[in-house]
């Protein structure tokens, strides 16, 4: 902390105060209300709601599909970012702009579009059907929707990092006798690893909270294709606010643990990286 350093922004006191207030009002207070609301339940009721088979199934789907979607996005996001950063081709700017489309689209629209394409007689769905692959109304569809809406996060996180990887590093490795795969594995990936983790975190966080696009393609069969946010909405529709809050608290806890773990991993990596700037 450096209080004395002069800066363009007004003094530390003011900015720190604002930060605290803002975080409290927008983030902490509502979360506290959520926890308080769930806390007003009896402990046994709480356990019953959050550990019902339907809830457990929804956790598995929500977190499993989100982790899977984030993984897919990190892999393909890396390839997309690589293409955009490293190659000059006609239409590059357009593709670059298209990456952000899932940001701009109302998520419900994405869900409807995906359902149209992947339902049994959709453009792609009808070819997958004979192969025995069902996408719409299965966990695959859920993963697909989550992948789509969280894709920009992965690409945008990795892109600047890749831009920073100097061509020189690869060339140096090449003159030292390394093959391209070796260069990718030993030089490029370690360098962009922090960015990949950030991309993973962002994509995962986005996917866990997603609701709009999933409900169209999921089919919402309890225990099978029902995600936790949907379950929460169902509780709300039955005016079971406490139940909804209980599920919310569980989601909050799991998300927090996962994100914290990733952040710790990242911090550990960074420490290893710049073991001390003296």
């Amino acid at each position: 902390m450096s209080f004395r350093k002069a800066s363009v922004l007004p003094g530390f006191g003011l900015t720190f105060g604002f930060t605290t207030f803002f975080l409290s009002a927008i983030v902490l207070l509502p979360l506290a209300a959520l926890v308080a609301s769930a806390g007003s339940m009896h402990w046994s009721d709480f356990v019953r709601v959050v550990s019902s088979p339907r809830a457990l199934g929804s956790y598995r789907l929500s977190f499993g599909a989100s982790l899977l979607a984030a993984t897919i996005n990190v892999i393909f996001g890396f390839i997309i970012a690589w293409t955009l950063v490293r190659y000059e081709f006609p239409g590059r700017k357009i593709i670059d702009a298209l990456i952000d489309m899932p940001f701009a689209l109302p998520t419900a629209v994405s869900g409807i579009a995906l359902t149209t394409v992947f339902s049994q007689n959709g453009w792609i769905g009808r070819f997958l059907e004979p192969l025995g692959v069902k996408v719409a109304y299965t966990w695959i569809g859920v993963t697909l929707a989550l992948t789509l809406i969280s894709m920009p996060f992965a690409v945008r996180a990795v892109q600047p990092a890749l831009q920073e990887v100097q061509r020189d590093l690869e060339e140096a490795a090449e003159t030292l006798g390394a093959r391209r795969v070796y260069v990718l594995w030993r030089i490029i990936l370690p360098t962009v690893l922090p960015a990949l983790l950030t991309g993973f975190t962002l994509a995962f966080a986005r996917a866990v909270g997603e609701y709009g696009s999933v409900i169209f393609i999921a089919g919402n069969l309890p225990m099978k294709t029902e995600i936790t946010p949907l379950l929460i909405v169902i509780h709300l529709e039955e005016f079971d606010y406490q139940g909804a809050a209980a599920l919310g608290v569980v989601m909050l806890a799991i998300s927090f643990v996962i994100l914290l773990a990733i952040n710790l991993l990242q911090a550990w990596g960074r420490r290893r990286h710049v073991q001390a700037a003296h």
Partner: protein
Amino acid sequence: MSITLDQVTKHYAGAPVVNDVSLDIGDGEFFVLLGPSGSGKSTLLRAIAGLSGVDHGRISLHGRDVTHVAARKRGVGLVFQNYALFRHMTVADNIEFALRVRHMRARARRERRQELLRLVALEGMDDRLPAQLSGGQQQRVAVARALAHKPEVLLLDEPFGALDAKIREELRRTIRQVQRELGITTVLVTHDQEEAFAMADRIGIMNQGRLFEVGAPHELYARPATRFVATFLGAANLFLARRTPDGIQVGGKTMGAAERAPGAPEHEVVAVVRPEEVELAPVREALGSRYLGNGVVDEVTFTGALERLRVRLDDTVRAPLLATGDVDGSTALQVTRTRHAHRGFEVRQGQGVAVGLRRVHVLPTPLSSFTACAPSAVRADALTHQPLLAELVARMKTRVAVRIEPALGREAEPCEVQGEFFGTTVIAAEGDNALRAEWLLRRGVKDLLLLPEHAAPPQRVLIHWMGDAARSATLAVSASVLRHVPAEAVYVGIFPGHSDSERHSHGMRELLDARSEAQAAHGLEMRTELHFGDVAQELARRLAEAPAQMLIVGITEVQHFAGGFRALLDSGRWPVLIVQRGAV
């Protein structure tokens, strides 16, 4: 030979970045490629390393043709300006990278690493990360890493660029020491002439993709062959001087003995005078060197060991001083003096001084200055603004004079011209070109440039000569032109009649002779082509094939030339430079 480059050419977006470079670098030699930014020196280094391909030519390392061999199999070590260390690896891992790739055992790796760290004076730094080292230390690691796999050639791409002066000095010494100890052939790329002087066994100077001159540092400094090298390697004053039977005349005063065989006809040359070869004295009698004239001190700058002055010569001194490449384009004489000389004779701004020259070096270039020649002042003046001429003048750091010949091209009037023609005479292409060219060539013009109104700098220059007497001069002029225009040079050999195998092989021999003479005597790299048929027709056909071409043609007598080339000259489509050298 350790590194052999043979006509290496690399284009980027149509323009040559490296243009026909041929070079031999010996075993254990420390060779410096010196040039301004954008001269193609880094591209050439990358081509040697295998990081960028070449469009034409061959590269051999220790006799092995590696033109199409991948970088990782070339066995070179490369050091970058920004170190390019792997930041997520320790010093040890960085240095061992090449050894790991080669699956060397851990113990052997460790031994080699320790040997290298000792070599670059970084013992005990094994476990540091690059971020924990200073710039100089990082570059030492980079050098050690590049040497780990015992490469046969070490390439250094501006390795000191990012370091401050003191560290730079120290690292220079280390690298030179390591290089001597290992006896490894080394190529260093830099734009810093001081660095080149400090490190090189030999220097190669590049500009606009071409390798201009190669030689030992002191040789290049004392006896440059081209304007570019003269002004790029240290400061230089360029004079338009005359080579007379008595010696070199600057401003009408003989400055030195003739460097070539006496008896050659008087002609214009470009003379180089280094600032430290200029002497200043209160009066003419006090000069220890040959007197040039009087001048006024314009500016005095003290730079520690040396004093730099600018002296404006009196108008009475008739020594045309060419622009010395300064930003302000001023033509004041540059002078540097030691503390010693300063103590002997102190000068202040505005003071009048007598100027003497201790040593004058004459450039062997045949192109000295240009003279725009036309029947009227208006047309001559318009010609001086022709884009190609303006470009040539700017790049050659020379000047254009104007000469009015009212009777130009009118053969009927038996008119005598006043005064001799010096330098290259330029006429505009506007109709009766052949007639005007003949008129001038008959009146003693040796080099004649015919310029179409909108001709731009050419991308390809075709070279041809008629008669062996013109051969050497044509090659010299071509070499001079091509040093200032980034174009491809093509010698077009044309033989009368049709091709048959015997005449074909005879023709090929001649082409090879021409090419090796151009290379050996004039440092000009050129391609060759063989054609059969009528000379002027074949040349016109070849010129018409692509845009932006220029012709340089050597002739020994006017009559035959003017007849055969009438159509080509009168079409006025291409710039044509006629070089007339006869058995006069």
